[in-house]
């Protein structure tokens, strides 16, 4: 048995930014050979995205890029040049899977579309992932996950109530789509082994993201009801929300609490050394009905407590609770620590920096962050010299012509 689940699997990765690289990261961390074909003329925008080592920008200093590109190799070409595209094509027979995430016309314009590439490898599996899919009037929509999160409905369900819009941080849908694309690619790989058939996969970030809103979309189509922003109100729990705790070091602290039953309600009051005879809070239905009043009441009880201590107390009493953690807290979180989530990897230019680990653990063929992200073109030599058998002179010439960087 090989040590990693996907040893021997080869991926040629033309993708950039979020969804594509996050998809191939699953493969790379599980032993597949992933070569990122990067354009030095137009680098992955994440390479210049913050945060940077010591807050100093640089093409090889971004943790934003580094987080999504562990365990991968990098070659640097200028795909705008025909000779660079020829080099890329010479790698296709090696590849089980090709992934790309440009706006739809780019790969075809370069002669690197699925129809071109499968001539070089008939059983190729190719994934194209872009904002709105390869077809349709808006196929060329340029964008990022921040905009897609608005377009696919997530911004609209984020807010304190009607008219309020306070979106989730960042490019939310970039973190939904890869779970679908990686799953599909892995299944396609197994299908090919069984049948010999490769295929082309067209994934729109838009369409994948909407899987996470399916109940609301089905409801609208059937009844015209539109799910809107409703703060932290829930039809199942009350109290349900974030409640202010005692400040620590001048920073505000909050605790999330969800109470489903009378038993939990009584346990919560006991843990907070309080009681209530308010008829509005007497039954679960009444509490849900009077969520605003209950939020105020619970908030007045939690205000003096330390969020961590209160979490332990409430959980011991059978109540769902957890501190609302910020980005410092998550690095000090006991549960993530015991799970072994965080990794400090040694990067060629950045030195040690913090990487998110895997979100699951496998007992027999566990994946891991095999290496820090590559610096741009780090594996040029290995790929051009060893895999493509170019001579030192040829490589030198291609560098002069700005084909290779």
């Amino acid at each position, binding site marked *: *048995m090989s040590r990693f689940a996907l040893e021997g699997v080869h991926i040629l990765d033309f993708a950039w930014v979020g969804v594509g690289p996050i998809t191939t990261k699953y493969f790379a961390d599980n032993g597949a050979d992933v070569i990122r074909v990067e354009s030095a003329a137009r680098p992955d925008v994440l390479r210049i995205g913050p945060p940077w080592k010591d807050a100093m920008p640089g093409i090889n200093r971004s943790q934003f890029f580094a987080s999504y590109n562990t365990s991968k190799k990098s070659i640097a070409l200028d795909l705008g040049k025909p000779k660079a595209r020829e080099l890329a094509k010479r790698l296709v027979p090696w590849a089980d899977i090709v992934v790309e995430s440009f706006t739809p016309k780019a790969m075809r314009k370069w002669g690197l579309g699925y129809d071109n590439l499968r001539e070089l490898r008939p059983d190729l599996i190719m994934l194209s992932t872009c904002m709105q899919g390869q077809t349709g009037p808006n196929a060329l929509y340029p964008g990022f996950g921040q905009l897609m999160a608005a377009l696919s409905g*997530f911004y609209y369900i984020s807010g304190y109530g009607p008219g309020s819009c306070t*979106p989730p941080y960042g490019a939310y849908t970039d973190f939904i789509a890869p779970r679908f694309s990686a799953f599909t690619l892995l299944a396609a790989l197994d299908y090919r082994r069984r049948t010999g058939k490769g295929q082309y996969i067209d994934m729109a970030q838009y369409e994948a993201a909407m899987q996470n809103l399916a109940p609301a979309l089905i409801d609208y189509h059937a009844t015209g009801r539109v799910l*809107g922003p409703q703060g932290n109100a829930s039809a*199942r729990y009350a109290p349900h929300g974030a409640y202010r705790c005692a400040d620590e070091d001048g920073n505000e602290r909050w605790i999330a609490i969800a109470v489903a039953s009378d038993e939990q309600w009584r346990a919560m009051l006991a843990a907070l050394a309080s009681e209530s005879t308010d008829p509005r809070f007497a039954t679960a239905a009444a509490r849900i009905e009077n969520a605003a009043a209950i939020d105020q009441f619970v908030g007045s009880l939690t205000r003096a407590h330390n969020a961590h201590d209160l979490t332990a107390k409430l959980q011991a009493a059978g109540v769902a609770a957890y501190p609302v953690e910020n980005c410092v807290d998550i690095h000090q979180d006991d549960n993530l620590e015991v799970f072994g989530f965080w990794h400090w990897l040694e990067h060629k230019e950045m030195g040690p920096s913090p990487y998110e680990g895997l979100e699951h653990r496998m007992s027999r063929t566990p994946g891991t962050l095999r290496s820090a992200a590559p610096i741009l073109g780090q594996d040029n030599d290995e790929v051009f010299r060893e895999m493509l058998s170019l001579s030192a002179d040829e490589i030198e010439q291609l560098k002069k012509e700005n084909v290779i960087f």
Partner: protein
Amino acid sequence: MPSELLKGFRLLDLTDEKGALCGKMFADLGAEVIKVEPPGGCSTRRIPPYLEDKADAEHCLYSIAYHSGKKSVTANLANADGRALVADLATQSDFLVESHPLGYLDSIGLGYDALTKKNPRLIYASITPFGDTGPGKDYNWADIITWAAGGVMYLMGEEGKPPLQMSLPQAGLHAGGEASVAMMLAHYPRQIDGLGQRIVVNMQACIVWTLMNEQAMPFLHGSHLSRTGIFVGSADARRKMVYECKDGHISILIAGGVTFGNSTKALIEWMHENGFGSEWMRTKDWISWVPGVFMKMTEQDYKEIEDLEATIQRFLLTMTKHEIYAQGLKRRIFLAPVATAADIAADEQLKARDFWMSVPHDTIGRTLTFPGPFAKMSATPIGSTTRAPRVGEHSDEIYRGLLGLASERIAKLRAAGSI
């Protein structure tokens, strides 16, 4: 038809809302997914809201959406016969996914060790709120707890107001998706050597992963964000990203540089054509203007951004979401409407891609429209799905067909409350 991709494989789905999406994804790709639930139905059958506010399992929108394509059998895990049925099903399954409190299935003989003794091929995934070893391994859970523990909630909302969750809880969906990926990762070596394995999905980690570039800020920049409201970015690049328009909101990414500069220029030209904006906006070199990246924001920069954002706001108030989006597409401006379910349902792009799927629901006497496939595949397309099963709808079919039980035996099990 579901896809042919995973045809012939069988998954036992013992999850609640921490993992229902997992089985749904397998069903979409053609696996036979058997949902095992207690008599009377599992907790996911009672999640509001309900279609037409009819509070029963058939109208539960969560079930309708995330159990489609599955089969349902009932098995009462509180009694030995019910447990034996599940153990027998597991010997004939390729995958099992569950989200019970940690240790529960072990305690009733349905844990990984017990089931893989009889079926070493089995891939067995447990979805856990905080992993299987940490201090929170037995914690009480609700979706908002993971949202808080994952660091996302802290960043969502406005200063001076509480941190927020989305109005449709998301953590369980991320965990379900992650379980699908992990099980397919384990499937690859299993197809070579015939051995399954145990997977533990950590929901907290699944949400931390969605924090994008923010997690490392405290270490690399010595700062971290608080709730950003309608603004994006770190302190140096703070930019308004949500604007009001005639009938709702619009999101725009305003920035300079190679990637964003042309979009910002196109927006300024569009405003100029309509008599909005000042000359400095048109003449400024947006391509080389990258505060926060390679330069510090100056007083002048802040003033200009404030002026630009105020102008954009006045301009957008003259139009609807639809009008703005159409122009944004035409002019290649990085913008998007803050779309409602109604906007999405009307979207021409999705119609052109034949995205929506009709799924007949004889259970409630109507056909419902579902979001379509998450991917278009050339060799093994995902076509239609089937409606969510009634609780126990396939008990007879599965227990008779798969386990070979006689009708009398099934009747006895039913009478004893085992199924």
